[in-house]
């Protein structure tokens, strides 16, 4: 928490936190009155000696502070946000309106413990509706909405796979992931106690089939694939991969992060996948909230059904009841129904879309991505030159030789009211620029983005030095990340 000595001379501008705005004796919101006799105090040893140093402000002070902070964000409502792998689409307002209804917001989760399902039939019906709709979209036979985010869903999926092998008396050691995978895949494997085998990608950007075949054996518990993958490529040999894995009784895990490309086109369950997680904050338009909450429902086929977590619902005589997990259940990964309020938004969105709407979403997402791919392919390096799905990946490695990196291009865009694409991911592409426009952007916005990207390349060729000064309009430019770690300051010392 130390600050370098000459900081005062060096500092150009400082931030003002909520603590800096605090004034002794100021009060925010009034609390309900003390209308009962005051109780006799607990023993001193149980009591707090110094009150928590929370700030003291009026309600209006607080409102102004956070309203001003909100203005320092880019967001999908304000800005084109082509972050690859993140599916930053418009979040329809109808979902927020429904989710704010008193009848959904003020339901206590221990109604489950009390088995008082009569009073919450509406909530349980929305859970059922979501589970059934997701089954239909993915071709799986059952869903659980208990996982609280995509990575949490991954963990549940891998736990069920472990239980499946255990139930066959068949402990396994490895999980296979391609080198283009999301970091959560190998991290999840490790969370559940597996070692990871990473398979390189072939010249088309797909997992190298021969390398995979060589590593596939009876010690492999499962293969985790993102389909289409993080390069936006649909693996043509996916069925062969499933068949080979299944011949060793290994499970196929479908990372559904990129479901937005494929709704109504190909169902993971039909292809042969055994388990899938869905990121509803991507495909099903629930807001990202600046980093969360998500919700990560998990679907399984009949093979993995017995291992579903403890807590679900079923309909008996026209009434929803709770179910606990069977004797093979992995147990609980969440106390109740995960991020229910987020799952609710997802089913509202799906209700508006219906079957045609969902297919149309994927179709337009792929249309927008391919349009960008073609418009920009003469200006950047193209690591894999083929039709893409919902996102396209370029490389700035030629530009980088002249000193302008993918990060420089990203920072340049910020000055033009656009969020940057994902850069430096997937890790297998040098100077990667990963662009996912989503289906909700119109052609004019996409054209402006493409024009700006082309402008950036021209400028980079002419004057690479100029790039280091971007962004110029956001008040701050290029954080010193090394300093952030060395002079670690992660809390206010007011």
């Amino acid at each position, binding site marked *: 928490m130390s600050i370098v000595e000459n900081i005062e001379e060096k500092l150009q501008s400082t931030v003002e936190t909520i603590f800096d705005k605090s004034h002794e004796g100021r009060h925010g919101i009034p609390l309900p009155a003390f209308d009962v006799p005051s109780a006799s105090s607990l023993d001193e040893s149980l009591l707090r000696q110094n009150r928590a140093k929370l700030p003291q402000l009026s309600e209006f002070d607080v409102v102004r502070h956070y309203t001003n902070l909100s203005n320092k964000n880019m967001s999908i409502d304000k800005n084109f946000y082509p972050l690859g792998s993140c599916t930053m689409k418009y979040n329809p307002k109808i979902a927020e309106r429904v989710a704010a209804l008193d009848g959904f917001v003020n339901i206590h989760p221990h109604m489950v413990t009390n088995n008082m399902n009569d009073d919450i039939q509406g909530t349980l019906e929305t859970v059922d509706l979501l589970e059934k709709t997701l089954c239909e979209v993915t071709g799986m036979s059952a869903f659980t909405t208990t996982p609280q985010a995509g990575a949490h869903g991954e963990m549940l999926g891998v736990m069920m796979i472990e239980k499946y092998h255990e139930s066959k008396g068949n402990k396994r050691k490895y999980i296979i992931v391609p080198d283009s995978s999301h970091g959560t895949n190998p991290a999840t494997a490790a969370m559940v*106690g597996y070692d990871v085998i990473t398979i390189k990608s072939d010249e088309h950007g797909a997992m190298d089939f021969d390398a995979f075949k060589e590593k596939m054996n009876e010690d492999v518990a499962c293969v985790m694939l993102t389909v289409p993958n993080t390069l936006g490529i649909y693996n043509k040999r996916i069925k062969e991969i499933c068949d080979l894995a299944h011949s060793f009784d290994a499970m196929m895990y479908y990372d559904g992060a990129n479901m937005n490309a494929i709704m109504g086109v190909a169902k993971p369950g039909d292809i042969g996948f055994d388990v899938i997680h869905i990121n509803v904050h991507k495909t099903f338009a629930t*807001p990202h909230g600046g980093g969360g909450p998500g919700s990560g429902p998990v679907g399984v086929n009949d093979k993995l059904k017995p291992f579903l977590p403890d807590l679900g619902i079923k309909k008996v005589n026209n009434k929803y009841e709770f179910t606990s997990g069977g004797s093979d259940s992995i147990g609980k990964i969440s106390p109740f129904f995960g991020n229910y309020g987020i799952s609710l938004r997802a089913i509202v969105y799906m209700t508006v879309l219906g079957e045609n709407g969902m297919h149309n979403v994927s179709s337009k997402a792929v249309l927008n991505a391919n349009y960008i791919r073609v418009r920009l392919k003469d200006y950047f390096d193209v690591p894999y030159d083929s039709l893409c799905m919902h996102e396209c990946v370029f490389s700035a490695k030629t530009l980088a030789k002249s000193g302008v990196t993918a990060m420089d291009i990203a920072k340049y865009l910020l000055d033009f009211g656009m969020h940057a694409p994902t850069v430096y991911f997937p890790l297998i592409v040098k100077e990667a620029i990963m662009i996912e426009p989503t289906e909700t952007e119109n052609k004019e916005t996409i054209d402006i983005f493409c024009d700006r990207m082309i402008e950036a390349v021209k400028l980079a060729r002419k004057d690479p030095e100029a790039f280091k000064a971007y962004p110029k309009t956001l008040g701050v430019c290029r954080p010193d990340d090394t300093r*952030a770690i060395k002079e670690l300051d992660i809390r206010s010392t007011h």
Partner: protein
Amino acid sequence: MPYTPHTKSDIKEMLDVIGLEKESDLFDSVPAELKVGHMNLPDGLDEFTTFSKFKKLAAKNVTDKVMFLGGGYYDHIVPSAVDALSGRSEFYTAYTPYQAEASQGTLQVLYEYQSLICELTGMEISNASMYDGATALAEAALMAVRISRRNKILIDAGVNETYIKVVQTYLKFRDIEVEVIDMSSDKTDFSKVEEKIDNTIAAYLFQNPNFFGTVQDFTSIINKLHENKALAVMSAYPVSLGMLKDPGSLGVDIVSADGQCLGNYLSFGGPSFGMIATRQEYIRNLPGRIIGKTLDKDANEMFVLTMQAREQHIRRQRATSNICSNQNLLALRSTIFLSLIGRDGLSKMAQLCFDKSEYLKSQLSQIDGLTICNSAPTFNEFVIETKLSADDFLSQLSKLGFYAGINLSNLYDNSKNRVLISVTEKRTKEELDEFVKAVGGVL
């Protein structure tokens, strides 16, 4: 088509540029044999019909009964300003703040959040949020295993019953030994716990106030843990920290908690958020995101994601956790809540909960056929035993307009007639008096 802006001429122009004839050609890379004909789903609805449909579903739920359910999820006040500010789409439609210059709003809020959590818990450092209280406790246990390089976790039976189950699930897949230490009453038996502590234990997980509402001074256990270089991990109830000794002063090593009570709705259990706070020396073992303050190239102060070498997107299988999305928007709500309620407000809120709970306890204890089961002080929850089965008791009171508490017989043996009651600042004296009258009536 909903939410896609493409006109016919847009589609044609774009396909021309791409060099395709029709839209369906876009999916040429998907093998034909994998393509599906259709999904068996209804047609889409306009948003007005959709709203009516869900409004009807919401109306099937009952929300007008007086709430005495707690057990980790509480019916506390939610100030209007929290909804208004967190409802700004500049916050809720932003992504994870990877591009720092475009995310200074979210980043500063999280820096303030980390600071507030440190103040609240008395701990040195906090991350930027976890999923919820249960998973935060499980991650704290994994953290303790990494720090101590030991493989055995003790859990006090006074920890929230569903949290124990979640912790057990997380740990069993890692072959970490878990022992739940039973309690014979509502209280932790300190000598029984201390007997179990030796130099093979990674950590002891406890909750204060415990699931039954009982408050105890865990100092002697914490001392014994430290003598054995084991960690004390406490699951806290943030509102109670307006009154009860903070974990930092108690000497706790890792604190986890659920943040629902700080300005978030019940929402059937989620979204809420989890907090995790610890000592500075353990920073490299923290899971999840951390926000730091630094300078930009021109020496302006700014905020960034920092210490990212712990995280999955950098470290992959060697990361401290697989967590990616956290519960940012709920952490933001609590930052705003804690700023609104302020230093005096939090103490007052805790005092209100305590006073009202004590009042209800004393009124109920005068009813024949009803016993208060707690043998030690409580904060705002307590257990009652009546001559009726918990099922009967709760369903009769539900008919009278009260959710009278949590049915402990569904969670524990020998608790057939026991109910856990929780009281918050929202319960008025009038409601409490009516409740006492109703309870007297059914017994």
